[in-house]
């Protein structure tokens, strides 16, 4: 285990904030905080749901920026090349819409509702992501 990088308290606290946000959206306006769903539906014709969706999507990066300032800067590091980013982006965009959810919709809201459908999705995308990293890092040696 990488003990230098291991920081369970920040992860736990950040996770609790994400859970709280999902709860605020659901108890407040009855909507599921699934980022891929909210984003994907923004690509359709505007309707009565467009307003809150846009507000949620604007809040997300602003909240991250605020937290980064509070923490004195976070250092996100995208280490993938352009071709990899394009392939990854296409797969994430298409896959999350086909599978009706991502890490937030299935992983947090779905599991919190005890949805068997979401549990299957989470197990599958975790397994496929871990297998992919094994292939790229250990078999191809990227």
């Amino acid at each position, binding site marked *: 285990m990488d003990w230098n990088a291991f920081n369970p308290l920040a992860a736990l606290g*950040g*996770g609790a904030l994400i859970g709280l946000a999902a709860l605020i959206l659901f108890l407040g306006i009855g909507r599921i905080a699934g980022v891929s769903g909210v984003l994907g539906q923004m690509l359709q014709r505007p309707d009565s749901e467009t307003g809150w969706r846009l507000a949620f999507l604007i809040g997300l990066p602003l909240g991250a920026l605020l937290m980064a300032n509070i*923490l004195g800067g976070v250092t996100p590091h995208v280490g993938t090349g352009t071709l990899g980013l394009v392939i990854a982006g296409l797969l994430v965009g298409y896959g999350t819409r086909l599978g009706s959810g991502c890490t937030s919709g299935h992983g947090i809201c779905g599991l919190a509702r005890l949805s068997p459908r979401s549990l299957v999705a989470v197990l599958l995308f975790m397994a496929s992501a871990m297998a992919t990293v094994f292939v790229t890092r250990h078999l191809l040696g990227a």
Partner: protein
Amino acid sequence: MPRVIVALLAGLIFGAGLALSGMANPQKVLAFLDLGAIATGGWDPSLAFVMGGALIVALPGFAFARRRARPLAAETFTWPAASAIDKPLMLGAVLFGIGWGVAGICPGPALTLLVLDGTAAIIFFVAMLAGMTLFAAQKQLGR
């Protein structure tokens, strides 16, 4: 309270959580997904605690919501209707996982990286929107 204010607040807290937790850092995500590094001592299991922290709050919260007739600032709860464990669900999850494993970025962090990172984040975001558009177009055409 207007719906947009509630949604903005939820978005702000969500984004803050992503930044604090480490989910907004693709290298952190990849180090979590890298089970092959257990043998060499390079595995970082921190992000398992993100889901733990989220569920500690959301599990009792959704159980409470189930007992309520309506949300605080809207007319109805939109509980997801689908319950079938079907081929689109499974194929979609697997494809998403492959993409997540390639770059370490899922949709929420893709949005936060737009302000935390530069060009790479824009490339990923545009490709992700293209993937979503492709799905919408395919659905429109009835495959």
